[in-house]
């Protein structure tokens, strides 16, 4: 191995390592409270490790005169163990991401069964110096694939395909926009290393599997992050930023058949001041729950927390009659929740809405203003009564 060639390998592997380090730091910093972030970071770290192992093995290959073949035996064993472990950890991450942090007994069992192949595979790799199944190294430190090298591809690809197909199947069942995006991201992320592996198989000179896997980690990071950017942590509804983006998008359509609804909790300040912020938070969660109970299954609606004690909903309904029905249902589900809860307060809402009219309205502010005024008039009425 000449020095100039080695510097090329260094260049190929250093960029993905750099990118993974940036991803790890960011994931550690931003997703500290999410359980699955540790799994994400560990997949990143393993890919870094395998890239380093890869680099080191290139350094020793064919250098039997200078270094003992033992170095290459050890590196090869580490490399192939990591190779399987990454597939397994990747699958685990995708599995938790799709099913949530708390698994049912059945889901737990599936995960346990999925661990069997990796255990067997690692046992085979450890036995390889004796059996020469996966790979072997001759006395001149030349590297050869073993007779059963195909096992490695089957295990790796198996986990990869599983972690791509699972979210793809799940996609249809998900209701929340953000969850759909996340499933898409996971499925897409599984395709890339697959493409990389195939190209690498066709053209031996290109090293693509791990760089492409790195790109996949970035895709997973982004889809992970998107759920965080647009969700309000307290209520799980869309947050104000996402609402504003969505409104911008609606405003630029010519379609007039949509409404903006504003919801405000009556006397929220009083609840907050009397019972403390923690109780206030629970009140907000109750309203979010009522909104979900009424409209959650309707994929045409966009539920959001606008800020403080205000909520906003964008509805794609045809006429005012429908809207009156929605308001009635909202009040019913909230009063149901009121009856069920042990809290000392009874929640009441002021609700106002406005229809988009592209002849009269130009910007998001226009419709916000009308809906806000409607809500405020409603609030005055309840105060007088």
């Amino acid at each position, binding site marked *: 191995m000449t020095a100039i*060639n080695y*510097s*090329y390998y260094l*260049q*190929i592997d250093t*960029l*993905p390592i*750099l*990118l993974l380090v*940036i991803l790890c730091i*960011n994931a550690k*910093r*931003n997703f*500290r*409270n999410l359980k699955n972030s540790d799994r994400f970071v560990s997949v990143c770290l393993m890919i870094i490790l395998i890239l380093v192992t890869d680099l080191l093995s290139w350094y020793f290959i064919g250098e039997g005169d200078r270094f003992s073949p033992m170095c290459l035996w050890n590196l090869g064993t580490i490399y192939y163990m990591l190779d399987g472990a990454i597939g397994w950890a990747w699958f685990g991450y995708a599995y938790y991401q799709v099913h949530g942090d708390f698994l049912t007994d059945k889901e737990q069992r599936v995960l346990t069964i999925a661990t069997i192949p990796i255990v067997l595979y690692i046992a085979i790799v450890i036995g390889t110096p004796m059996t020469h199944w996966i790979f072997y190294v001759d006395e001149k430190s030349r590297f050869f694939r073993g007779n059963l090298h195909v096992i490695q591809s089957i295990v790796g690809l198996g986990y990869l395909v599983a972690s791509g197909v699972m979210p793809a199947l799940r996609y249809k069942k998900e209701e929340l926009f953000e969850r759909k995006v996340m499933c898409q991201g996971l499925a897409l992320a599984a395709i890339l290393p697959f493409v990389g592996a195939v190209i690498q198989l066709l*053209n031996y*000179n*290109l*090293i*693509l599997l791990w*760089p*492409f896997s*790195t*790109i996949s980690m*970035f*895709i997973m990071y*982004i889809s992970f*992050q998107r759920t*965080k*950017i647009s969700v309000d*942590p*307290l209520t799980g509804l869309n*947050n*104000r*930023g996402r609402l*504003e*983006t*969505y409104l*911008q*998008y609606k405003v630029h359509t010519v379609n007039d058949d949509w409404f903006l609804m504003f919801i405000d909790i009556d006397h929220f*300040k009083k609840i907050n001041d009397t019972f*403390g*912020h*923690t109780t206030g938070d629970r009140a907000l969660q109750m309203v979010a729950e009522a909104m979900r109970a009424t409209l959650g299954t309707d994929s045409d609606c966009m539920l959001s927390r606008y*800020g*403080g*004690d205000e909520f906003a909903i964008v509805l794609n309904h045809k006429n005012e009659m429908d809207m009156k029905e929605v308001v009635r249902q909202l009040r019913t589900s909230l009063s149901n929740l009121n009856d069920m809860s042990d809290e000392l307060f009874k929640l009441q809402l002021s609700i106002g809405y406005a229809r988009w009219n592209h002849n009269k309205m130009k910007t998001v*502010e226009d419709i916000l*203003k009308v809906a*806000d005024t409607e809500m405020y008039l409603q609030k005055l009425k309840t105060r007088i009564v």
Partner: protein
Amino acid sequence: MEKYIHYDIYIFPMVLLLLLWAIIQLKKIRTSLDRSFQTIIAVCFLSFFSDIICVFLDGNLEIAVPSAVYLGNIIYFIVSVMLSMTWLNYVLYYCHDSIHYHRTKTIRNIMLTPFIISVIFTILSPVNQQVFYVTADCMYSRGPLFWLPYVANTIYQVAAILALAQAYALEELPDRKRRILVIEITTIIPIICTVFQAMTHVWVALPMTAICLFYIYMDEQNRQITSDALTGLNNKDYFNSYLKRLMDEKEDFYLYVMDMDRFKMINDTYGHAEGDVALKNVANFLKIHLGRRRAFIARYGGDEFVAIMYPQDDKEAYEIMLSLKADLVRYNATRDKEYELSFSMGFAKYDESFAHKPRKLVDAADIMMYKDKEGKKR
């Protein structure tokens, strides 16, 4: 073999760039800043592409003809100047931090001049062989004006660095200062790498540019994820995880709580839009006046703000509170509004008894804040 490896190094950053571009393209609303960032990504991708073509054709007598080598190099030179020009364009948008930023025609013309001059000379090269020429065996050779594209590049790069340095010096808000510094560093790194590549023939210039673009993107995303959309302060979510981290580190600190007075009144009398303005003003006031010392400021909820600071003892903690309130009175005098901004404030010192009970610490500060509020009502 050597040529293959050259592609191999480039494939990874190229796929990365495509992905970055697509992610931004998928956003429903793209600001002009987003668009100018996308332009850099596209031009950078073209640079990779033309670089590969040039290396592939250079001296490759089986495939290349001199005219193809000429064409490849012309594209390469044009794209490389374009890259630093679009970078400067992005930097200028960034420094002005405004969607409504419009450049006057004169400035636009001045900006284009170095680019146009180097394009003209590069395109004329097959005729007059000034910038470069191609030998009969399809090899690239420098002409007498070979420095022209490099000088054009340097002009843009220096302009970008200076614009950022100026913006950094003028900026008051600490978080924006930090972000400007990030852009400055990511502007300088590719330049260093270009010099390094010229000296060693290690292909780092373009790949590192791609990594820097990636870093800028990540930094911008982080800001969005940890900050409150309205005020730009840290949000409650990030505050909570920051507090947990601090408690793990066992360092002494003080938690301040600030609750705006009569915010409901501002909202009800002047409307929600004005309420938002009031919140933004308070946020900016806190950023500027607390940013001078070591402080972590966040919007805790509706009209409540929190800050973490590190005074030596209770006496200094109290002085910080008094001076902040005095500053707010002065700040009100500069605002031309019918209502005045004020907040009630309280603080609590973190000690062992609060370990792993962040909620308790906030409550303790809240008690002092409520006393302050009650005192005002009487």
